[in-house]
């Protein structure tokens, strides 16, 4: 499974990627939408894990851009607050979100679930 994590907090996303690597998941990371899109253009990722609220772009908008480059990629969203969770719950991606701070076992489980699904989560 190949995963990209995109979140503006470098220490968070780099450490999370390292912990996924320890668990045998091939994880890259980026801290900006531009950097993330560049990686997606170069590499086929099974799953993108996106922060819902980044300074310059929302995770929802970034998902749309990634889908243009990589239609098969699945998505998991990370959110800091219940209000964002509620926002996501009203969209077509309600199954795949996690609230920060993330429990690594929960993320790994979601990654395997998402990887096992076909088509876009709805």
């Amino acid at each position, binding site marked *: 499974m190949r995963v990209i994590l995109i979140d503006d*907090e470098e220490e968070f996303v780099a*450490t999370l990627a390292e912990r996924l690597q320890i668990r045998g998941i091939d994880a890259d990371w980026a801290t900006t939408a531009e950097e993330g899109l560049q990686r997606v253009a170069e590499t086929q990722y099974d799953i993108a894990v996106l922060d819902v609220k980044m300074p310059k772009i929302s995770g929802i908008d970034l998902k749309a851009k990634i889908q243009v480059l990589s239609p098969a990629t699945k998505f998991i969203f990370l959110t800091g607050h219940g209000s964002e969770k509620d926002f996501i719950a009203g969209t077509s991606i309600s199954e795949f979100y996690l609230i920060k701070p993330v429990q*690594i076992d929960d993320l790994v489980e979601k990654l395997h679930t998402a990887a096992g699904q076909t088509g876009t989560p709805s």
Partner: protein
Amino acid sequence: MKANETTSQETGLQFFGKLSAAVSHDLKNVLSIINEKAGLLEDFCHMARQGMALDMERIDAVTAQVKAQVERADQIIRCFNRFAHSTDHPIASVDMGETVTTLVRLAQRLLAGMEVSVAVQPIDPPVVITTRPLMVQELIWAAMQWMAAQPGEKKAMSLAVERCGDGARVLIGALGHPPEGGLDAAFCAATDAVREALQAEMHLDSASGMLRLQLAALEPPP
């Protein structure tokens, strides 16, 4: 209650809520980093129990990163505490330098969202005036937002405070890209109630592109 008072209370609450939400987001991020670093240390321990050698330098580095995040959280909370106490008294003695510095620190995330960085110029000697502590921050924030919303690439903004008689003058400049045209009517109307309560005047210098907020010294409470 006058209509203007109601309006200023509502916009004041909105301002307080917006900044509080940004701070809570920052603190969540700090907690998330600490959570991952602690988890990584757990992973190292688990691997060591399985016979892998511990990299002590790496453990030292991760521990130092955790301490740095604790320090970051402490600074955020200190600033937020100072900001929260600005509601203690409607009118009080306000150190303008400390106030604008705290405001900019707390609003870092919001400013980053607007793709703007703000440099607060050194303010020495301190400029202390009697004013409305929360409202003065609300007006400065509204002015910064307006400057940031002007067309063109505005990556850097400067913020300075100088004494002006018994009052103070706040100077907000968009470095290299002054806003075109004058102050628009919508912005003036949105800040009308706050400016009236602060006895503040607002002026955009068309030549320099500098927005000046002239703040009067208010009567101290009896």
